[in-house]
């Protein structure tokens, strides 16, 4: 029982990371109907840049905002190079391929800059576990959950309460109408990509002390976060948190009770099943197709 509880705890921490990345998918999907297939690589870059900064002697807490700034820039680059031309020529194939290509390039660059080996990210908090209801929790895991929730709340607050956020929401509702109302929708889309990469980079810096940091850490995380985004529905904020936790716990328990080699399988199978039976997600609304 104690073990199970512990697995659930680390599952929740992991799940929150998925939720944050999935949240990034939602941000761009809402403004432009596109996704960054290199989202996992944005996370990896966040972790790598964070690690470099920490090694340079920057304090962990000071590093986080710097990583966010880096993420903003990286996301804007992805949008300008990979997504904007494709939106212009209305090519779905175009943005899928170009974000994949950019993801590969980022990964390859990271491999060449930081090496192919996994690196250890020093933990900013004590590494001795705390007892909660008889099971161990790492302080870092609590930080991950808190940080993830704060990040999402901050973005939600921005969207709901500020005039810039209203522009984002307006673009989501009807891109053309928003454009006619004088909103620079191109800028909003760029901004949503920047924000999306920033959340991913932030998530990377959060999770890095709990896992090994390396150029390949992003790929599977990005894919599983997509599973979360689908399970939760690409338009439901609550859905991704629930979806993230479901997936995180499923993963830690599979890893423990079956084999760590299979730990990625439940998420992927879940993704296939949800898409096969309820493509709008468990929490999303079914869109009515118009002819």
């Amino acid at each position, binding site marked *: 029982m104690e073990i199970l509880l512990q697995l659930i705890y680390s599952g929740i921490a992991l799940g929150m990371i998925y939720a944050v990345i999935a949240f990034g998918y939602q941000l761009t999907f809402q403004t432009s109907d*596109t*996704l960054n*297939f290199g989202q996992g690589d944005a996370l990896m870059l966040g972790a790598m840049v964070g690690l470099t900064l920490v090694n340079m002697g920057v304090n962990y807490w000071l590093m986080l905002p710097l990583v966010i700034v880096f993420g903003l820039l990286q996301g804007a680059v992805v949008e300008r*190079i*990979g997504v904007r*031309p*494709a939106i212009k020529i209305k*090519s*779905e*194939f*175009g943005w*899928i*391929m*170009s974000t*994949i*290509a*950019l*993801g*590969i*390039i980022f*990964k*390859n*660059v990271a*491999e*060449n800059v930081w090496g192919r080996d996994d690196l250890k990210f020093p933990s900013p908090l004590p590494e001795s576990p705390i007892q909660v209801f008889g099971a161990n929790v790492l302080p870092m895991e609590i930080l991950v959950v808190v940080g993830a929730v704060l990040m999402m709340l901050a973005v939600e607050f921005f969207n709901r309460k500020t005039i810039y956020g209203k522009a984002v929401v307006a673009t989501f509702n009807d891109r053309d109408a928003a454009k006619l109302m004088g909103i620079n929708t191109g800028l909003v889309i760029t901004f949503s990509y920047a924000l999306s990469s920033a959340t991913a980079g932030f998530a990377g810096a959060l999770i890095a002390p709990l896992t090994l940091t390396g150029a390949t850490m992003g*790929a*599977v995380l990005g*894919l599983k976060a*997509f*599973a979360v985004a*689908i399970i939760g529905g690409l338009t439901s904020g609550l859905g991704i948190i629930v979806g993230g936790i479901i997936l995180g716990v499923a993963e830690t328990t599979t890893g423990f009770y079956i*084999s760590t*080699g*299979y730990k*990625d*399988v439940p998420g*992927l*199978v879940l*993704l*296939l*099943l949800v*898409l*096969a*039976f309820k*493509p709008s997600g468990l929490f999303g609304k079914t869109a*009515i*197709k118009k*002819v």
Partner: protein
Amino acid sequence: MNRKSFFTAVAGLTALACAPLFTHNPYYIHMIGTIMIYAILLFGLDIVVGYTGQVSLGHAGLFGVGSYTAGVLFIKLGAPLWVIIPASIAVTAGFGALLALPALRVSGPYLAMVTLAFGTIVQILINEMDFLTEGPLGIKIPKPSIAGMQLNENGFYWLVFALMVLSLVVADRILKSQYGRAFEALRGSPVASDCMGVSVYRYKVFAFVISAGYAGLAGCLYAYSEQYISPNTYNFELTVLFLLAVIMGGRKTRTGALLGAAIIVILPKLLDDLELFRIVASTLAVLMIIGGGIGIARKMTTPKAMAVPVLGTLALAGFSFWLQSITDWRLSIFGLMILFVVYYLQDGIVGFVRNLFARKGGSAEDHAFRTIDRSKDAIMVAANTGHVEAGHDLLTAKGVLMQFGGLKAINQVDLHVKRGTIHGLIGPNGSGKSTMMNVLTGIYVPTAGSIEFAGRSVVGRTSSDIALSGIARTFQNVQLFGEMTALQNIQVGLHHSFASNILDVSLHTPRYRREEDASVERGLGLINFVGLTGLAHEEARNLPYGKQRLLEIARALALDPQLLLLDEPAAGLTAPDIKELVTIIRKIRDHGITVILIEHHMDVVMGICDNVSVLDFGQKIAEGKPAEVQADEKVIEAYLGGTAA
């Protein structure tokens, strides 16, 4: 295929077959063999990517399934080649069907992710199921033997060559037949495919299964060719390489697949040589500057548009001199190539070259085809199912209710359409006319009510099933298959007239030839009927709007419908075109086809309709002869606004 390209193809293939006679270096023979194996996979991948227009990131996984089927059958059962090849194809095709299940409900980015998840799962399973696959250790397989004779490098080369040519011919024939047209139609407009009786559901699965079969064959040959397989080969990188090959070579061509395969096999080897890469990168930059300069000088492009590629190639050249080792940057180079192809070479190399020549070539082909035209009235054939006694109801809708959330788009509407008449359906915008069409053709399932067509209920049946039972339609916002020619669009409508199966198509049996010829003849007849003579080989997206609408009618007629639903056919047409249209609609009716006409041009409606129903806010407010309806108080109120109640 015309004679010239046929001879080029034969000459090219003969040269390929003779390759081992000229070089005795096993390195090159193995390399060309690998190219051919990849080409087989790419023929299949092109079906999914080029024809149905979906991004599959699962083909490395399918390739792996093929390889491992071969490997496992060999080490566990010692199975011979003639068992292993069909088994690999069948097992992989099975996996393709499995993959198609979730893929059916989704498309675009979702599908890409689904296939990526599938590919990842396959790789994990191969790694973990070591009782079957030996896990990360991999499997060793010797070259196969035929009739007790162990094949050497050359023998295997010819085996691969033979299978490649076979795959090429079969793929080419399938893709040029009604199957290929169905795949392409899915991409152009899924809704229209369904309404032409080409079930999106069935043909998507079909495309995946065939595509997977090809991947299986390629995987199996790859296992023999490398003589060693391990899970790490079948990773994301390989999948992306395959995609790069398809789009770079050129979608929808077999030459493109061969070229793409050659690029992805040879390029990594070229990249091993830094000196060569520097030369290539510099040449590319120089060419780009010259090309850009010429382009700007001739005003074919703007300096702004050329800035990115020119600077990009310059940066690449500079980068190449800064680099110490190129192998580490291989993936970045592939990434850059993908970006380049996606934005600047969308039709791939083959498409690019073809475009260059097409401008000079002109319409020689078109003239050749025009001679086949028959003056036979194609619609005569179409209508022969409709000659049951006139005057009875062909379509009866009772109490139809269509609710979207709280909105009742159609509220308790009854509709009786008499056989052999033109029935007008009018009403202000948003009154539910198009929704009614969608309900009748099965795109929406009504919340309540019954619809009977020719004695059978329509409710709950799929769109394609309804279409095949005799309801054809056009769309308010034109839904043609843009990249297909006018004739091909109509041939999709004629899909139901084909009885030939994959085997007929692959072997070009007399049955298939007969059906194909008949469909061309009927198609050209229908094109004449709607007055598009001479435009048969024009891509639908290049036709002017009015002609697109006429083409939609021709395509709908190809279905041999008893009932034809026309959704605002006159919208956007000029006055003379409308006159033409009215004549066409009359002719259609005279051939015994019942017509439901939605239209805002009242003179058209009043002029040709036998009966008119008027909808307003989802309810039927009037019905009767055009003149009666025109005088109806309620109708006038709905159109012009009420005189305050």
